[in-house]
């Protein structure tokens, strides 16, 4: 089963410039790909298209030959660049985590999530702490593909290494495919088997 973008065209609005023009992209389960490209070149847009948050004006996104399912938890999970914008500010973190699926204690421990944080609101946590919740939420369901859009840019290097090591171990165990969007070439070569540019 592979995740494909086939000749995708996308622009915001009816008259905006094309962000993606005739772009194809392919990756398999178990593959680890890094996407390196300058800012504003459509990396986040491609990530959102692949995860089904946006639909292309032309072209198709196919998962194992079929369009992404419209119901239930999406097998392609996206972890966003700005965690503070990816959570409901009026929900406690417990409820936010439960959206992804049942809580797994060992995953919370591996990510360094303190149990005391579960009853707090997103505003009471730092960006790095919040991002761990977003990672846990994405891993809680049965995702086959994980799209990581600059997930560690706001983390300190020790936390970055911790989170990536957890993610890579989890991906290895479940045979997930990982697409990492990043600006850091060192990080890209460290985590990916294949580096793509836009």
């Amino acid at each position, binding site marked *: 089963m592979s995740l494909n973008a086939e000749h995708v065209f996308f622009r915001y609005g009816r008259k905006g410039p094309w962000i993606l023009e005739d772009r194809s992209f392919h990756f398999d389960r178990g593959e680890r790909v890094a996407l390196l490209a300058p800012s504003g070149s459509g990396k*986040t847009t491609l990530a959102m298209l692949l995860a089904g948050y946006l639909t292309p004006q032309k072209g198709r996104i196919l998962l194992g030959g079929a369009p992404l399912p419209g119901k239930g938890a999406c097998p392609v999970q996206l972890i966003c660049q700005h965690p*503070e914008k990816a959570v409901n500010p009026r929900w406690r973190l417990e409820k936010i985590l439960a959206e992804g699926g049942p809580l797994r204690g060992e995953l919370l421990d591996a990510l360094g999530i303190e149990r005391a944080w579960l009853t707090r609101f997103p505003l009471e946590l730092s960006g790095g702490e919040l991002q761990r919740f977003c990672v846990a939420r994405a891993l809680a369901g049965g995702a086959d593909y994980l799209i990581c859009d600059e997930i560690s*840019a*706001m983390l300190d290097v020790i936390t970055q290494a911790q989170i990536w090591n957890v993610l890579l171990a989890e991906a290895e165990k479940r045979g997930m495919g990982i697409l990492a969007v990043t*600006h850091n070439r060192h*990080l890209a070569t460290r985590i990916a088997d294949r580096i793509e540019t836009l």
Partner: protein
Amino acid sequence: MEQKTDTLLELHDLSVSFRMYERGASQRELTVISDLHLTVRPGEIVAVAGSSGSGKSLLASAILGILPDNATVRGHLHYKGEELTAERQQALRGTEIALVPQSVAYLDPLMKTGAQADGHKKPRPTVRREQLFARFGLPKQTGRLYPFQLSGGMARRVLLSTALLTDAALIIADEPTPGMSTEQAVEALTVFRELADDGRAVLLITHDIDLAFTFADRIAVFYAGTTVETAPAADFKEGPDALRHPYSKALWRALPQNGFTPIDGFQPVAVRLPAGCLYAPRCPHKTAECEEKVPPVREIRGGEVRCYRFTGKNGGCDVS
């Protein structure tokens, strides 16, 4: 309280705590920054690196006096040799001291970015803003767009421009580079370097320590709300042997290009801070002394460190 006239900003024994409700009406104090020392001199870029949630952004808010009402700041804050009082903070922020906020959510969603960057300044610095946008590689029409129409990296560069358009003597940049490509981040830091060479100062809060090595003069390493080490940037370039505190060494080793090895354990939470050295629970070299008393700041080899185990013998390093 000694005062140095050659420093622009001096923080001495600074602590920040929050009053929080526990259960019903009972309150408790939560200390998030404790005995922090930091000096910034004119012409200098001081990078603040360290773990997420160690209070780096709160430090920025404390200097600007924009903490919420339930926060208490203790200790000494001096700007240009004079006490930084609440009135003075209010007068200085935005003009003498400028902030580059951490989150792109700080942009007004209903205002075009060009007008936001210009601010209330009269006459409008439109020409300078356009030059700055062009320098950061933002397309010409960016000024006419709303924040939601920008990518993450573009919004960052707009935020950065808002601070650079002021004539502030001190710029506090709270993570200005995530989302930017390496070239753009280098350009942004080059602008900071030029400002510093011009006699202004930049307090750069960042996780991009490899960029900080290259552009900053000194690096202050934060852990759990205090500085564990302040070192010349050159020491970080040299590697763990030149560094003093075990946490700084661990930071260096966790970089993707130098091993990518995290250390075990987590930063202590503010409710349960250890009695002694804040790093002791994770430190492989701790002794009984470390767990009892907070180590004082000591000056060693042109840097400052809070560690009992570091004596500076044998070329400077007895803790690896």
